[in-house]
């Protein structure tokens, strides 16, 4: 292969034998994973399956955790948390610009998430969906090569969640960062991601590529097959649900 192609196919995230444990309990058990640059990956798993631990390891947030393995991630990484985590004492624009500067970039990012005109608002004046949009703007402003999202829509109501799914996918199409989206919502994973991983007892139990065009509908019958395979990997059968 020509050198420039190699450059393009070099994975953005590369994990080899990643192991993490808390108090002797192994949470991640030797994970190998490559995420190519620009891929949208969803990570599914039960609570306690280690999905947040994996995300935090990639984000470099696990200071006092014992573990081993190889991990490489891009330099510019942004994280969106389940809570918007806006600082209540800073106005929305100043929250978006936390850790960087350039008010114009911040305004542009707010406009992109549909919050133009709310730059001077206090976080307490925003609805849950708006706050999460502001958090997305904060992560965008840094032009991340990798976007890590830890159940970012988990606390939102169903209607707002659907709107946020469209927004996230739209932003991804425009900026093309690699995305690792941690979620426990199978439908969310299927509708958004091009590749879905199921984490089971510290290992990747299923690695599924979803080859369907976007935008996807929840009602697309062809997605049902993926859903069944994912639910089976999660240990849930349709009869039980």
């Amino acid at each position: 292969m020509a050198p420039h192609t190699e450059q393009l196919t070099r994975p953005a995230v590369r994990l080899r034998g990643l192991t993490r444990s808390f108090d002797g309990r192994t949470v991640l058990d030797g994970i190998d994973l490559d995420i190519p640059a620009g891929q949208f990956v969803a990570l599914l798993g039960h609570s306690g399956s280690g999905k947040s631990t994996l995300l935090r390891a990639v984000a470099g947030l696990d200071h006092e955790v014992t573990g081993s393995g190889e991990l490489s991630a891009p330099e510019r990484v942004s994280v969106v948390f389940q809570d918007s985590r806006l600082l209540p004492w800073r106005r929305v624009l100043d929250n978006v610009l936390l850790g960087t500067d350039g008010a114009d970039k911040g305004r542009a990012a707010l406009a992109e998430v549909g919050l133009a005109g709310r730059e001077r608002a206090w976080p307490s004046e925003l609805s849950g969906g708006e706050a999460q949009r502001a958090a997305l703007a904060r992560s965008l402003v840094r032009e991340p090569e990798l976007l890590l999202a830890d159940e970012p829509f988990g606390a939102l109501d169903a209607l707002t969640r659907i709107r946020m799914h469209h927004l996230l996918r739209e932003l991804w199409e425009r900026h093309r960062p690699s995305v690792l989206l941690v979620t426990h919502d199978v439908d969310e994973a299927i509708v958004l991601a091009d590749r879905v991983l199921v984490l089971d007892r510290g290992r990747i139990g299923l690695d599924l590529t979803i080859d369907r065009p976007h935008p996807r509908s929840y009602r697309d019958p062809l997605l049902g097959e993926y859903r069944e395979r994912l639910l089976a990997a999660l240990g849930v059968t349709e009869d039980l649900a």
Partner: protein
Amino acid sequence: MTVTTLDTAAPAAVATEQPRRRRRGLAPGKRLPAARLAGPLLLLAVWAAASAAGRLDTAAVPAPWTVLDTGIRLWTDGTLPADVLTSLERAAYGFAFGLTAGVVLALASGLSRTGEALIDGTVQLNRAIPVLGLIPLFILWLGIGETFKIAIIAIVVYIPIYLNTHAALSGIDQRFVELAEVQGLSRLRFVREIVIPGALPGFFVGLRLGVTGSWLGLVVLEQINATSGLGYLMFQAQNYGQSDVILVGLLIYGVFGLVSDSAVRLIERRVLSWRRTLSN
């Protein structure tokens, strides 16, 4: 099944329900205009009425207008302005030193583990000793002049400011620490943009306690160890049985306390305008 249960339950519910019934609000509701003044004004009116009706012993409780007359007389003959100025100066110096010490120590102990190890235990020990009990020792060390009074007031002020600011600094939400790491903030920017603004509400609680404390310290010091100042004026008046002069002194102390507390509240409301609480 469901239909029958609904049928039996429905008539009773319909009968008692009133159209467009609202829930009772649990917040205290809108502020009354000039609410803070209503109580004191009522008290003043009762006092004036009782005096006018001759129901009060004028030697013990003089009429409001007698107090006012005495106040004006003392003010115009120059004794009162001099005493007020002396007292204000003591309180201001003591407060300024206490505030500085409280904030500096809280920052040093809240932002570094070494600082915490050295400072926090010491301050807790200091707090356990009643400050007014230190007066005899301080007189021996610093003499009976202004220095010892300012030192005592400073100690009374620094303790609540230290305690509340330190608690707020060490209680910074772990989630915000994580956020700062993710956003790549330097340590300096982390302290300036997250730790300090996050600790401000606690600091203001300490500040208000400190302001009150400075007046409390002042009153005690001036009534037992002074040769000038408002407290001294009142102490002298006690010897001559001038209850009106004592009341003038108390009134001025009260005005000092009220004005300084309102000033702190005003600053607090400006600085913490992002907070939406029951009170605004």
